[in-house]
Structures are given as C-alpha cells and as structure tokens.
C-alpha cells in the first residue's frame, strides 16, 4: 500500500537500474503467444524501418523456416555468416558472436531468444550471447514465445501438457527496454497452421497438433498479453518512482467482500468474484462476528454458512473475525491483508435509523483511506418486501407478565399503606411505581413494563389521590407521568436486552473454551493411542451432543478404518464419504456439498505435519452441521484431537523404535554368542584334523590318539551346545508344551547321570534321595535335559575328583532337588544373572564353551513346568554352588503305599 514507505524508497534502486542500462545497447523483444504468430516477420519489418532511418542493421540469426514472405524481408539487410560448430559428428550453425563484435553494427537481429547453443559454443544459451552484444552497446532485436518463460513453465505444462525444455529466465524479459507483443487470434493461427505456414518439425507434428488447440492458444495468448501488460505496468511504476510520484501502486489487487446474514450477501459475493476475476486478484469473503451474532436465528446462521459455501466455491478465501464494531474490524483486517478493494452491500435502512445508528457503509467509506470501497446495491423491490420489519420484542412468557403484575401489586399496596397509615405526602407517592417499572423492564420485557407504566398513574389517581376512587387528576399530569415511565421502561429494556445479548455471547464463548479445556484435560491423561481415541470420542459425544467416531488411515495410508468406537458398522456410502474427506483433506458427507447423502459429516483431523485421520459426526439436526458456531467449535475440537492423536502416534512409534532397537541388540548378542560357542571348539578341531592329515609321518601313535581324543571332546561339546540351542528355540517359540507324566525323582536323576557318565568320570557323585518322595508331574525328556545341563555345569566348574552331590527332599508338600558341586562359587551378586541367556561366568581363566545357554535353558524348561529354579551359595566352608529345583505341591502326587 502507498503508506508503506518501502514502496517509495526503491527510488534510489530504480535509478541504479536505469544507470546500469546506460552505456548498453537497447533490447527489444518481440513476444508471441505461440510459434507462427509472425514474430520474425514483425521483427524484420521493424528492422527495415530502422534501416530506412539510416541505422546500421545486421542480421545475426533469423530463422525464416522457408516462409516466402519472411524470406523476402531478408533482402536489403546485411546477413552475418554463421559459425560452424561440429558436435558428435554433426555440423551445426550458430551465431558468430566474435564476428558480430568485430563488425559492431548499431542494431542486430537475433531470432529465438530462448535458443540453446550447441555444446562447444561460447555460451550455453543465446540470451548470454545477447547480453554480450548489449554490453558492447549494440542494440538487439529478438523474438521469443511466452511458453519459454521460466516462471510460467509449470503453468504452460498444465495448459499444454507439454514440458518446455528451453526456458528463459524472467529477468531477461524484464530487462528488455521494449516489448512488442505480436498478436494473432487463435483461429487465424490455426488457419495458418493448416495452410502449412507454421514451421513444425516432422517428429513433433503429433504433439504440436495438441499444442495448437484453440483452448491452448487462447490460454497462451492471454498469458502473453498479461505478461506484456504487467511489464508495462512495472515500467510505469518505475517511471513514477523515478519521478517520486507517491502511490498508490495498485498493480496487485486483493479484494475483500463483507458478507452479512441476509441473502443479499450471495449476490454480493458473486459480484465481488466477478470483480476479482476481471482483475485477477484474490478474493476474501469476510464475516464479522459481533456479539449480536449469537442472537441470530438458525435461518440466518444458515444463510451465513450458505454464503460462505458459495464464496468457497467461487474460489474465495473465507474468514470469520470476531469484533464489536463492524467498520473498524473490517478495516483492520483489510489493512493487515493489504486489501485494495472492499465490496460491501448497501443496507436498506430508513434515514432515521441511519441517523441514529450510522450507516456501516458510510462509516466504512469515511474511514477507508486508500482502500477503495465498492457499494453494491442489488436489492430488487421484490426482495425488499421479503425482508421482515424489525419488530420490537414483545414476545415473552406468561411468567413475565405475572412477575410484573406482582411487582406492581406490591408497590401499589406499599403506596396504599404509606398514604393511608403513614400519611406520606401523595405527591411523592407517584415515584413509588418507578421501581416496579424498572424491575419489569429489566427482568421481563418491554410490554409488561409499558402496561405498568399505563396502570401506575391511573392506580395512583384512583386509589390514592384525593378524592379516593375517582379519576380526578388532569389529563396532562397523567400524560407526564405516563411518558416518563414509558421512556424509562423503553431505555431500560433496551439496555437489558443488550446486556443479555452480551452475556449470551460471552456464555457461548465460555462454553467453547470450556469444551476445549475439558477435551484437552481428558486427553492429557491418555497416552496409548486407543485411550486417546476413546477419550476424544466420549468427550466429543457429550460436548457436541452427537455420535462421533474416528477413522485412521491404514499402514499404506491408502484406506481408512474405524479406529474408535471399535465395534462400529460402516457401510459403503459412509466409507466413500470418509475416504473422500481423507484424500482431499476437506469436509465431506452430511451438511457439505460432497456426498451429502452420507449419514455423517466427515472432517479431516489435521496437524501441521499433515492429516492424521478423519472425524465422523452424526447429529440429529442438519442445522447444527451448518451452524457457524458449531463448525467453529468443531474445528477447534478437531484440531486438538488431531494433535492428541499425532502425539500418541509419535509416542507409539518411539516406543516401537526402542523395542526394536533392544530386540536388535539382543539379537546381535545372541549371534555373537552363538558364533563364539560354535567356533571355539572348531578352532581346536580344525587344528587337530589338519595336523592328522598333513603331519602324518611326524606324529607317533600316541600323538594321534591324543589328537583324536581332543577332536572327540570338542565335537561332543558342539553337539551339546547345538542340542541346547535347538531346545531353546523350540521352547521360546512356544511350539513345545511339556508332556506331563508322573515321574519318580530317583529314576529321573539316575537316568540323567547315566546319560552323562563320560562327563562325571573321575568325580565323586553322591546321591542323597529321601524315601517316600511324592511323584512329580513333568516332561521326562525335558527334565533330563535340565539335569544333564546342571551336571555338566557342576563338572565344568569343579576340579576332577571333587564331590558332586544330588539331594532330593520333601519340604512342606514341595519336592526340592538340589545339585551341589564343590568347585568355584558364584559371586552373590551374580546368582540371578547366571540364568540370563548367554550370560557367561568368568570364574576361570580358561574358556568354557556352552555355558552361556545351559542355565537359561534350564530355567525356561523349569518355568514351563511352573516349577522354580535358583542358584545358591552353600553355607558351609567347602565352597561350590547349589542349584535348586523346586516342584510345587500341585506338581506332586503322593505314592499310595501298597499294603
């Protein structure tokens, strides 16, 4: 806007632009909408004119494409020979820049400004060549089609479906001293095309046909015209700035239309839309929500909504602003948005009302400053009749009359008492009716208070004034009292009404705030996405008095599913509406223009990062969906819900990331452990086997036996490890359930020992098993695995020759089996860790393969039986470790002693 100093300041800058142009050649561009409009022809014509003026004109490059009339124009003009450049075995001809600079003509013609030079030329682009010419004070005439303009590239592609590859930076066109638009109506151009007068490369013929459709040409022509106009506009602006002419600079318009609650607003929006289309300016439809908005009837509110819908359909931006004063709110908003024109309707108000309330339009015009105000008066006589007269609000309940009457009676009785018993001066008693009138007009409404105002003087005269029970007072004194009371009641009732309106407005706002607050409070407690969704649905149901649901996108973000409430039935129509809403990020369904036959209104739940889901609302009243207040409340709630959903989703993703990271690290530990356990025995096996193979002659018989023994031991170790590993996998995957059978402890233990007789050789194994032990319920094979592992461990961690004690006993119904070695003790703080998978005790300096899995497998098996296992340090001084397996009472069965 013109008030903006920054628009005036660039004066210095514009001088600079001008200065930089001094000492340069002048650039004239012949701009066309499409090939074939006759740019080259126009350029050559202009060149001839200049030559006739005595200017030294030379042709740098001109493509005549074999057109006879163009070819003819070449005659009489100096033609610069072209330079031959070979590239990829082809010879190309390009403009010979050096030759031209040497020749130094006053004016040179260079066709096709957007041309790309063959690789090997001095510059990549022709406009760079032209820049050099201009710098050398040579004037240049050139031609270009609008489709080459860089900034229009995407627009052109949209229009023509053809991607233009040779683009021209906008600044080149801007830097032109003169632009001549070479215009040809589309029909004419198409005719020329069909007559073969437009040069078209063979291979592009098909594409070109599409390009030359009337609609494309019209669009391109418009672009070219507009661009030229803009350029002229800019040049004018520059000129004005140079001459220090103060704004306004209405080169870019923005139009605002103020809408109201009547149907006239729709016409207004249409008119404004036409203005904006003509000026190619964006349109904003603005509604100012004053406190009285809340007093509007539903019909009026729906009208506002309809007008907004229309405005949106016409491509306008719709905005609602709260404010007390329409005029100042409109202007404030308009200034913020750099609006240049405001379109308002003419309100039909009587002159008296205008005088009393002031006309919005007049005030707007008076205060608008630089902004143009368009006042549209489109009300037909017929429409005028439709507008209901503003009525005084006589509507009230019976209750109001009764209250007023009671108040009147009370004061009447009071007056009677005062005058009869207390002899209060009658002249003062008239005032006693005033409170009744005030009360009535404040709490009830106008009509009762007017009735009281009538009754008061009469009552006073009849019941209180001397002589009693006679109307004796002169008429004018009645009239004076009467009119005073009437005036009071009218004033007060108006005041009261306004206060009520404001209170209502405040109450509505309060409700909105309250609703948002409760929603956010409700959701703050919920962390998991399902809880958040449930909280939103429950809360929205109660706030909106509607049935709400939330739909979330599936993993591919292609489809939606009902996420809450979970047991929801959803038919095809609803699905379509919700999906449309999701894909277009707009409301759809009931109450909208899209798929309105759906049962619900669907509303996108959006955050800054995008759409998170769809809110579906089912409400009984259609009106509610169209109500502006309802919509606004809904939007505010939806925004909050969207944030909460997004937050929950992010939290979920983060949690998943952490879990998968942990899983990942566990897997890598597992892998390295497994590979360690597999490899260690293999190292000695490979060394031993290769010794046997390759050093056969150097080894004696004893050596060979020893090596084979080592191999045997290592392979045994490997076998155990692998069988443990497989067992573990089976149990962990849950595919193996213990096959419960009744087992005698004694046979289980002796079986386990027998299985490991190789290992325990040289150890002193003691079995201490109580008599009459109950049987246990367990899987025999699995339990053998447990005790084999325990025996193996005991052997591994104690020296050969030491004791291994197996002890089985009964303690309070439970069967406890203990296996004790007298080797190395587990440190107290590691007693529990030994059961962790791949935990390996570093109790000895030597590597002990396989220990990483054995105990954790034992634990897994034992726990699959609902039994318990733990490690203990013996309380005597002999050291070692006790592993205790406890079978609870429900896993035991007493043996019935045979008689």
């Amino acid at each position, binding site marked *: 806007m013109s008030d903006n100093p920054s628009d005036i300041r660039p004066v210095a800058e514009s001088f600079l632009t001008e200065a930089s142009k001094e000492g340069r050649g002048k650039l004239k561009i012949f701009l066309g909408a499409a090939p074939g409009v006759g740019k080259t022809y126009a350029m050559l014509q202009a060149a001839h004119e200049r030559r006739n003026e005595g200017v030294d004109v030379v042709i740098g490059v001109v493509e005549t494409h074999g057109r006879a009339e163009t070819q003819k124009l070449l005659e009489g003009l100096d033609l610069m020979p072209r330079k031959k450049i070979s590239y990829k075995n082809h010879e190309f001809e390009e403009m010979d820049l050096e030759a031209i600079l040497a020749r130094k003509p006053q004016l040179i013609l260079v066709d096709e400004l957007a041309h790309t030079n063959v690789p090997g030329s001095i510059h990549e682009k022709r406009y760079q060549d032209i820049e050099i010419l201009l710098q050398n004070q040579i004037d240049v005439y050139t031609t270009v089609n609008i489709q080459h303009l860089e900034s229009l590239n995407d627009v052109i592609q949209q229009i023509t479906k053809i991607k233009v590859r040779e683009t021209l930076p906008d600044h080149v066109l801007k830097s032109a001293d003169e632009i001549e638009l070479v215009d040809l109506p589309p029909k004419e151009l198409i005719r020329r095309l069909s007559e073969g007068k437009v040069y078209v490369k063979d291979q592009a013929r098909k594409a070109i046909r599409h390009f030359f459709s009337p609609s494309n040409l019209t669009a391109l022509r418009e672009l070219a015209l507009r661009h030229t106009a803009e350029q002229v506009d800019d040049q004018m602006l520059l000129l004005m700035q140079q001459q220090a002419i103060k704004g306004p600079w209405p080169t870019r318009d923005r139009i605002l239309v103020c809408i109201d609650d009547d149907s006239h607003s729709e016409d207004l929006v249409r008119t404004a839309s036409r203005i904006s289309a003509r000026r190619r300016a964006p349109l904003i439809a603005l509604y100012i929500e004053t406190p009285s908005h809340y007093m509007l009837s539903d019909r009026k509110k729906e009208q506002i909504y309809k007008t907004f819908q229309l405005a949106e359909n016409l491509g306008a931006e719709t905005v609602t602003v709260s404010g007390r004063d329409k005029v100042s709110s409109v202007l404030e908003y308009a200034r913020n948005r750099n609006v240049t024109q405001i379109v308002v309707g003419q309100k039909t108000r009587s002159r008296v009302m205008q005088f009393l309330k002031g006309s919005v339009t007049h005030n707007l015009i008076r205060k608008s400053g630089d902004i143009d105000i368009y006042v549209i008066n489109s009300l037909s006589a017929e429409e005028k009749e439709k507008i209901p007269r503003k009525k005084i609000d006589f509507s009230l309940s019976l209750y109001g009359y009764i209250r007023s009457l009671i108040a009147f009676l009370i004061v009447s009785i009071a007056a009677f008492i005062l005058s009869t018993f207390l002899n209060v001066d009658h002249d003062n008693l008239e005032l006693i009716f005033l409170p009744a009138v005030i009360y009535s007009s404040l709490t009830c409404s106008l009509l009762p208070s007017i009735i009281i105002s009538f009754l008061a003087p009469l009552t006073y005269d009849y019941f209180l004034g001397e002589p009693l029970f006679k109307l004796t007072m002169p008429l004018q004194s009645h009239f004076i009292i009467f009119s005073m009371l009437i005036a009071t009641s009218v004033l007060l009732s108006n005041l009261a009404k306004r206060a009520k309106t404001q209170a209502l407005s405040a109450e509505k706002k309060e409700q909105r705030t309250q609703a948002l607050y409760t929603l956010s409070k409700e959701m703050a407690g919920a962390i998991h996405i399902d809880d958040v969704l449930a909280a939103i649905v429950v809360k929205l149901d109660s706030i909106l008095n509607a049935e709400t649901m939330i739909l979330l996108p599936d993993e591919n973000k292609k489809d939606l599913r009902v996420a809450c409430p979970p047991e929801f039935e959803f038919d095809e129509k609803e699905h379509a509406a919700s999906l449309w809403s999701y894909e277009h990020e707009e409301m759809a369904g009931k109450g909208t223009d899209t798929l309105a036959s759906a049962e619900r209104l669907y509303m996108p739940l959006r955050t800054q990062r995008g759409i998170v889901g769809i809110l579906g609302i089912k409400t009984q009243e259609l009106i509610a969906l169209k109500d502006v207040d309802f919509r606004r409340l809904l939007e505010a709630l939806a925004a909050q819900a969207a944030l909460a959903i997004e937050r929950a989703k992010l939290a979920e993703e983060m949690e998943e990331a952490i879990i998968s990271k942990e899983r990942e690290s566990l897997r890598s530990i597992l892998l390295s452990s497994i590979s360690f356990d597999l*490899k260690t025995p293999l190292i000695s096996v490979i060394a031993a086997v290769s*010794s046997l193979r390759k*050093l056969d002659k150097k*080894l004696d018989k004893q050596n060979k036996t020893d090596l084979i023994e080592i191999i045997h*031991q290592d392979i045994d170790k490997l076998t155990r490890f692998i069988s443990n590993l497989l067992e573990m996998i089976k149990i962990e995957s849950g595919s193996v359930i213990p096959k419960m059978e009744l087992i005698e402890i004694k046979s289980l233990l002796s079986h386990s020992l027998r299985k490991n007789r190789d290992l325990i050789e040289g150890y002193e194994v003691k079995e201490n098993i109580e008599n009459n032990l109950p049987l246990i319920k367990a899987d025999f094979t699995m339990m053998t695995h447990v005790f084999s592992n325990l025996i193996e461990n005991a052997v591994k961690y104690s020296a050969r020759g030491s004791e291994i004690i197996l002890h089985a006993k009964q303690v309070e119904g439970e069967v406890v089996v203990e296996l004790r070695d007298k080797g190395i003790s587990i440190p107290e703080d590691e007693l529990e860790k030994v059961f962790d998978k791949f935990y390996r005790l570093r109790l000895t300096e*030597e590597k002990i393969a396989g220990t990483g899995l054995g105990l954790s497998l034992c634990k897994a098996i034992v726990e699959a039986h609902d039994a318990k296992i733990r490690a203990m340090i013996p309380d005597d001084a002999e050291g070692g470790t006790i592993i205790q397996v406890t079978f609870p009472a429900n896993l035991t069965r007493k043996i019935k002693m045979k008689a």
Partner: protein
Amino acid sequence: MNVAKKIRTLIVDDDAQLRKVLKIVLHALNHEVIEALNGKEAVEAASTENPDIIVLDLSLPDMESVDVISNIREWSKVPILVLSGEAEENDKLESLEKKADDFIVKPFQIDEFLERIKACLKYSSREAEEEPNVIKVGNLKVDVKNKHVTLDGNVITLTNKQYDLLKILSSHAGKVLTNKQLIRAISSETQQEDYFYLNNYIDQLRQKIEPTSESSVRVILEPNIGYRLVTAE
C-alpha cells in the same frame, strides 16, 4: 637348523583344547612347549623361560594382548606370532604396529601355522647375521649386491620402486609386511607415497614375478594390513 637344539615355544591362549593340539604337534616337531593361560603368565614366562618364539592369542582374559606385546618388546626381540579371531581386524593391525612379527587368523590349518612359525624364526635368526648377498625365494633370486633379479634363471628388469618392493618382500619372505612398512621402503625422505600407489606398484611387480597363475612365488594381499611374499607349493 640345528636339530640338537630344541626350540622353546611359549603358547599363550585360554583355550585349553587348542593349547593341547599345538602342544602335541610342536612336541612332535621337536619343540619344547611352555604354556600360559593369560597375559600375566605370558609376560612372566617370556622373561623367565627365555622362549625362542611366542604364540600369543589376541583375546586374553586378563589384559589386552597389545599391552602384552609392548611389555615384552620393551626388553626382548623374541618373535611373536599373534593368533587372532576374524573379527579382530583392528587389533591385528595394532599388534603388528606394536611390533608383533606376524599373525594368523583362527581357525587355521596346522601347516599354515607351522609356516608362520618358521618364517618368524628365520627372520629373527637372520637378523643377527649379516644380510645375505643373494636372497632366494622359490625360483626367484634377488642379488642384492648387483640389484639383479632372476626368475627361473631369466633376468627380469624392474624399476627402482619395484625392486625396492621386491627386496623388502623377499628378505621377509613368508612374513607379513604392513602397508606402512612397504611404503617406507619405497619412498624417499621427501616424498611419501600413499596407499593407492603402493597398490599400483604391487600390481606391476606381480605382473613381472608371477607371469602365470602357477608361479612359484606370489605376493598375497592381507586385507587392511599389507602384503606377504610366499612360495607356492
């Protein structure tokens, strides 16, 4: 080699099974074997037992093996052969930088192991003597005095850099040489060649000394470490 004198070999590894295998084999080859289970024992044995060669595992339970090497290197030039796991790439290089003589990756074939032992012993015993005038590796002869190289009796001409490379490789035949050592051997004081060029020179050298795939000598790449000249069998 003097048969009467037994070679004293110190094996440092916490894997009892492997120690047993190596002990059996080395005994059969007339070595005297000393065992150590950890770094502490290794350092102690190295100083008290006076071993001729030390076989040292790279992952010891009590201390870093590279520390064991630097500790021993403070007072002894005894050859050290490092046993490394596949995953211990960096430790391998570090141990060589700390002046271990060579390495072998577990699991290994016994003949490979014995080759390394041999190369380590040869190199250390020769260091005491004077450098020989002619180095023989397989069919390759390098006349150090006259800078004259023959392969199967045929003269091969080498550039200075190629010759320098061949000389250091052949005088340490069987033993790994790190990229750094090789670069140092072919660079002048002022001009340090980088790894890329080394690679190039090795390729050029290979073309000359291993003309067929069945050549008797070969330059083998030890990834990320360096090269080794070996005789093919």
